[in-house]
């Protein structure tokens, strides 16, 4: 039963401001220990390093909104980067075309897992876990386990260049986030997607096509992972076959920190951007504080489980004596 007066925290979360506050809190805390966090150069670094997770997280926002999950983003990123680099080097494709091939590789991977979910009724967890393995295998097969390097320098530009103080990759991330916000908030597709994740039966009764929506979200997630693959190749100046392992955890954690629900229907791009930056600053700050990278991993795990517990608490999961099917 809905309550008329929401708690202050619930209202904050509802409006998506909770994650923004959390971002300020995290940055403030880190800056208190190490003022260098706030350096302009350091901020640009955080943005550049967050961009890859960020681009994937924008795609993941769509998937979580639909009530699904995409575990394959790290592998798809690696495969797309490798395919793009390989076509550029071995087939001599012009750089922009090679970028397009990379993104398209991601799209195809997304469509494949999306088809499994939409038509094969495979749970998203299974379908994308299979894709996680398959795409990684494909990458190793294509590269024979060796990095692909020695590409035309133009290929790397988006991954490392800056416009003034702003890293290009960061601008790509913000641009995509803006586009995604418009798509979600201002178009029928966005409304249908939120409705579908919120209450699939209602969406079906309203005549919306569940397979179409499902396919779209995985295609979007795959495409953006492909694009992130291009950024990654640029950042490392080579396509590394083992890149992006475990990336899905960072991405999903960022989106959930941004207020998206793992049960679908709730979430937004604004929150996701904040969530990505929280993860980025945590990473960066812990490194500046010279905390061992092993501890960093554990801290990320704790942050993630904290975000999930908060999500469940807000859902009223722990309220005693819930009614049936509440």
């Amino acid at each position: 039963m809905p309550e008329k007066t929401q708690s202050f925290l619930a209202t904050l979360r509802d409006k998506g401001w909770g994650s923004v506050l959390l971002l300020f809190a995290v940055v403030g805390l880190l800056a208190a220990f190490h003022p260098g966090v706030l350096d302009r150069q350091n901020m640009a670094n955080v943005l550049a390093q967050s961009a890859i997770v960020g681009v994937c997280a924008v795609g993941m926002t769509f998937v979580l909104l639909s009530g699904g999950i995409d575990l394959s983003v790290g592998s798809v990123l690696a495969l797309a980067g490798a395919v793009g680099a390989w076509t550029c080097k071995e087939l001599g494709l012009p750089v922009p075309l090679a970028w397009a091939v990379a993104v398209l590789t991601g799209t195809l991977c997304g469509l494949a897992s999306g088809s499994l979910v939409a038509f094969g009724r495979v749970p998203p967890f299974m379908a994308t876990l299979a894709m996680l393995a398959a795409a990684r295998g494909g990458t190793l097969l294509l590269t024979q386990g060796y990095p692909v390097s020695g590409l035309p320098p133009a290929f790397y530009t988006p991954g490392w260049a800056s416009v003034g103080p702003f890293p290009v990759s960061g601008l790509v991330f913000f641009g995509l986030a803006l586009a995604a916000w418009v798509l979600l908030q201002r178009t029928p597709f966005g409304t249908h997607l939120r409705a579908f994740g919120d209450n699939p039966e209602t969406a079906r009764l309203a005549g919306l096509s569940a397979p179409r929506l499902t396919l779209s979200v995985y295609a979007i997630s795959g495409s953006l992972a492909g694009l992130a693959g291009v950024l990654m190749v640029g950042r490392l100046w080579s396509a590394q076959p083992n890149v992006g392992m475990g990336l899905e955890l960072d991405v999903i954690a960022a989106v959930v920190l941004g207020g998206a629900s793992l049960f679908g229907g709730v979430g937004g791009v604004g929150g996701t951007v904040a969530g990505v930056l929280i993860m980025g600053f945590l990473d960066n700050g812990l490194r500046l504080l010279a905390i061992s990278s092993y501890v960093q991993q554990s801290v990320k795990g704790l942050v993630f489980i904290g975000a999930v517990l908060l999500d469940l608490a807000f859902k009223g999961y722990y309220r005693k004596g819930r009614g049936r099917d509440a």
Partner: protein
Amino acid sequence: MTLLLEMKNVHKRYPGVHALKGISYSLRAGELHALVGENGAGKSTLVKVLGGVVAPDEGEILIRGESARWSGPGDAIRAGVGIIHQELSLAPHLTVAENIYLGREPKRGPFIDGRKLADDATRLVEGFGVGIDVKRRAGTLSPGEQQLVEIAKAISQNVSILAMDEPTSSLSARETEQLFRVIAGLRASGTGIIYISHHLEEVFLLADRISVLRDGEMAGSADAKELTPERVVSLMVGRQIEALYPRTFRDPGAVLLDVRGLSRRGVLEGVSFTLRSDEILGVAGLVGSGRTELARCLVGLDPFDEGEISVEGTPFTPRSPGDALDRGIVLVPEDRKRQGLFLNRTIRDNTIAMRLLQGLRKGPFVDRPASESLAGSFVQRLGVRCRSVFDSVFSLSGGNQQKVAIAKGLAVSPKILILDEPTRGVDVGAKAEIHQIMNDLAAQGMGILMISSDLPEVLGMSDAVLVFRDGRCVARFPRGEGAQGTLGERVMTAATGGIANA
């Protein structure tokens, strides 16, 4: 008047149930044709067929004389059929306006025209004379307001046929009045309305024609002027063959369960009764009247705020189903597929599921030979039709599944058995067998609390009938108080809030 809708000889079969047995139904322009019947009579299935949610197995649907073949709800909407489902089905995190125009958003270029969306929705909602901010999230509205939004959503589709399933169930008196005004307006503009309700006073106030469904068949259909509430009730209840209710009544024994003033805020209010050994106590009432909630409190699934429960004279506060089990109370829940059974496991695994809490072990291991013979003995005793105890429950028919669900409860030898809808979705043969089992159990000294929406079952099997309404136990009718027909009418009257004050 033009005929908007004609359904001819519509059949729908689910595994183990023949839900619609050749229903014919028609609707004219501007007419309100009420559909009444008990829970499980087939009303909701009929509405689902009409809305394109399920496809009929046989028969024909004509919309304005043309045959309609729908592959989904979208087709029905496009054909001008609007359905207001009984269960509230809004997307709680979308705004009211987004919910109303879901799938039909006004557009400007590729974008949603947000202003037009809000304006249209506001105008529509204002037509009800209630102030609902259309930019609020649907989940924050009261149930009554949500119901009005559902209605607005259906009306906004410019439907010519509108089916309403219990539209007033969560409305206040004022909101109900608004709804009736809206209905009058719709009828004046030629919309035909299918009105499903348990509230006979509403039905007689609004309807031109009334059709009564019983067990998936059309029990009767006539102009409202030619019917009386009493006649409609007797059509709903019907006359059933004696063999379906094999009950040998005896004097009940000692008090097993004594419930005093049981209350749970918003759900139950001051419920008191006693259950004796050798007794079957029927619990009648509409869905949502507090019957299932009572069962949940008794076995510790939900806490209660006030009241006392004592079992065989000693006070008892159940904290969990395990607690209740220790005191000999077992619930066989209403939804056997989701709550009562492990569908993918074997008959043996289901039968011993609860019993394993009490024993059936050999050291740290399951005593396999004993568990197989236990399951085997229940299969024989309850007449479960299967190849072996290793059949998965999934493969059984509804009636046999229900027997396994009961076997799971009986395996722990309870003193008090609570059965929630023991024969829902079960064919007539299996129904009689389950009734026979209940009779035998009572004869062996068990006390049975039987929650059922099947009125003939309640009347045929119970030593006494408790009637629930709005969380209260409003009446207790002992068996044999008046003839069966009149007792049925009194139960129905008590459950629906009385026809007399219409």
